[in-house]
């Protein structure tokens, strides 16, 4: 098993927020699903720590990028769902653009010649 990376700490805080927003594009989800999606789509390289996930979700809600409601989970249990708002959608575009620039810049510094053209869908 490769060593898992936990997106936490000051530098990656914004990245976690961005990834949460990206996850929610597919529709509302509760905390457990969000964590699972991030882990799975990163091919289990990134591990979301719950101690960071929930404060991040509340932070996003404070900023009005996501909204929350209580609903029933796939297993028919009560769970708190998060949904992307219009503002959040806009923010995701901004964040994605910024991240791409950053990734490109870091890539250039690290001497990578071929750059990802598509990145995140």
């Amino acid at each position: 098993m490769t060593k898992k990376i936990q997106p936490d700490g000051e530098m990656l805080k914004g990245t976690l927020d961005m990834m949460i927003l990206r996850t929610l594009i597919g529709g509302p989800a509760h905390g457990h699903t969000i964590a699972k999606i991030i882990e799975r789509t990163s091919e289990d390289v990134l591990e979301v720590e719950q101690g960071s996930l929930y404060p991040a979700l509340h932070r996003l809600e404070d900023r009005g990028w996501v909204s929350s409601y209580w609903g029933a989970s796939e297993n028919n249990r009560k769970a708190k769902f998060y949904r992307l708002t219009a503002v959040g959608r806009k923010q995701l575009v901004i964040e994605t653009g910024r991240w791409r620039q950053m990734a490109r810049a870091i890539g250039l510094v690290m001497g990578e010649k071929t750059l990802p053209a598509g990145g995140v869908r």
Partner: protein
Amino acid sequence: MNWMRFLRRGREDDEVRRELDSYIEEETSENLARGMTAEEARRQARIKLGNPEQVRERLWRQNTVAIFDGVWRSLRYCCRTLRRSPGFAAMAVTVMALGIGANVALFTVVRNVLLKPLPYRDQGRLMSAYEHTGAYPMNVVAPGIYTEWIRANRSFSGLSLYAWVGMNLSSHDGGMPEKLNAIACTANLLPTLGVEPALGRNFTTDEDRPGANRVALLSWSLWQRRFGGNPGIVNQEILLNKDVYTVIGVMPKWFAFPDAAEQIWMPVNRYFSAQEMTRLGMHEFAAVGRLNSGVSQSQAQSDLTAITLRVHNEHPDNALISIGATLNPLLEDTVGDVKKPLYILLAATGCVLLIACLNVANLLVARAAARRKELAIRAALGSSRLRLLGERLTESLLLTAVGGIAGVALAYGAVQWLVRTRQNFDRVEAIHIDGAVVAFAAGLIVLCALFTSVIASLSATGGKLFAALQEAGRGSSAGRARARLRRTLLAIEVGLTVVLLIAAGLLIKSYARLRANELGCTTKNVLTMRINLFGDSYRDPAQRVNFYRALLERVRALPGVEAASFTRMVPGQGYGGDDAFTVVEHPPLPQGVAQFAINREADSGFFKTMGIPVLRGQGFDPSRVLDQANQVVINEAFARSYFPGEEPIGKHLHYRDKSWEIAGVVGDTRSELSKEPEPIQYYPLFTGNLKGGLLVIRSSRNVEQLALPVQHVVAELDRDMPVSNVLTMDQLLGKETLDASFNATLLAGFAALSLLLAAAGIFGVLSYVAAQRTNEIGIRIALGARRERILAQMLFDGLRPALVGLVCGLAASAVVVRLIRSMLYETQPLDPTVFAAVAAGLAAVAIAACLAPAWRAARLDPMQALRES
């Protein structure tokens, strides 16, 4: 930071817990699906989630407004600790309330009276103009001089003349007659001030002419009171002095010129005769002007002075013409009298507040000492120093804020009281508590909180945590530094108190001197009331004489009346005016020189009624009336000044184009309590020249009961004649000395307050020191120290800061009292009796405050004291 989340943190937290629970459930069911046992599935889910408390704590912190939370927590802590020492809290709050209340009240007065500009457009350019006679730089203006000013000046865009006139408002339909203060002014008064009537219009220059239709402007309050605020009043006719006037307008509610007593404004040239308006020596008017832009006060003053001097030189035969002019800014003119006393009272309240702060700081230091162990333990347990300091600040803030709010309430009451009791105070109508005053109060609260907590923190334990714990545990001779700080505070407190006491003492002594002055006449059981004669029935002197005769006859016949008289003014009522005279038997005065003396009219019984002794000759012959009444009576000062070494009886005075024989010399009286007796010339009432004055009634007891019967007599004689200013002589004099008594009483109140605070401080400090030294004293007594010696030592210990403060205070007073020199009457600023009395009084209070704790220390039971520690 989110306010909503902060306020509902509790509910949020609950939701987070449920959210985390749902995560565990999801993960557990997934683990079960992976084929784990139920127990293992749950265990793994929990491992994956990690510590849920950490998540909750993180969110809690994220949702917390840190500063607010800290303040809230220290506030709750302070409330709890204060509740445990209600005595301290009550004392501190009361002290702050008194200190802040006094300051806010006085600031309200100072702000509204002195600092706020007058409510006129560009009011800084408005100037009061006076004539300069050589002897009096600010003499009232003669209309002839004003006419010259208007014609020749190049400094004013508007210059207006006005005079105070009495108006009797009566009505055809039997309404109560009423005497009103009115202003007769030129048409340009309102434009000069930049004011327009709220209703109707100002009068025109055409209406400001002899023979024009009579018109009048009403004050807002008169309009509301007498005419029910009916806008139809404009163009209505009213009766003033039995003449028909047309109301042409109503002034705005705030308008009070020259002050709030005036209720009617009317054209001056219609009221006075054309001949009077050309007089160069008739000093009965006031003038106000608006400076042209770019013209300074001194330029305008020299402009008017040059004009006046030219007129003076053109009429060498008229000795009544002034030689110059003086300008005074209108605001200064309005509040000049109260400015200095107000600032001095404000300084006094500032001292009281400083003392209050020192006292609260003192209490806080004592408290910090008592809680030293607790603070040390908390510091040892990891409470940050900042937190402890914040707590102290919060405590001060809480105490001063509660005290301050109570103080503002006190100030509100005080201001209401002042406005009610001091109707004659300049601009009293403008005094009210507004936003700026509240801001001032808030600023004061913060300042006091900072001041007290900083002073109190000076004594904080610093880094010597361990020492503090040790010291607190053993109760040996501890807190020396703290005691020194408290003594210093105390010395300052006492010093300030001494300054206040001395200032108050000097003012009280002045006031006592003033009241002790003999007026020169009786003041017991004498009632005065003002009556003015208006209308066609009193046009000529004979009619007036008949009225006075009938009035006096009927009043004298009333049961209980011992004597009754009529006069222009009574002693103690003020200067009231003078007129020129010459002594017929003396060589003529050089050209351009004139002699003046106060002139009064009185009936023949006046001297007896007022108890003024006839020293030589006799009073007026009551049988001589009108032209036959050609006698004059002079007072001793007159005889001394103008007939030195001569017999005045039988000589003649030339006065108002007639010759009068001196019939008698009477005793001196003072026109004001604070003035030396001046020469007075009395002329007979029965010449019929006097058009109004005071009816004076003397009785053997309860003279006030006579007011109503006398008013009935007046109404019987003339239904439309108003009676005003019904006052006993004592009340009349009380009004005259109100300023002096007001200032002295307030200052004495502040001084008494600070004395009380200082005494409490002395008592507190010595009690504290004695408690600290219980152990030591116990040992000394056990070793055989004599109790008297302990008593003496403790007394000395307590008195030392008081004595240091006393000496410093006396020294400071010697400098400070110079500031109030002008408020003193026949009292030297360095009056030794006042200084000695204050020193002795303060020492006595200090000893009294020290005695109880010192006595307690000396009576200590050594066994108990040692066992307790």
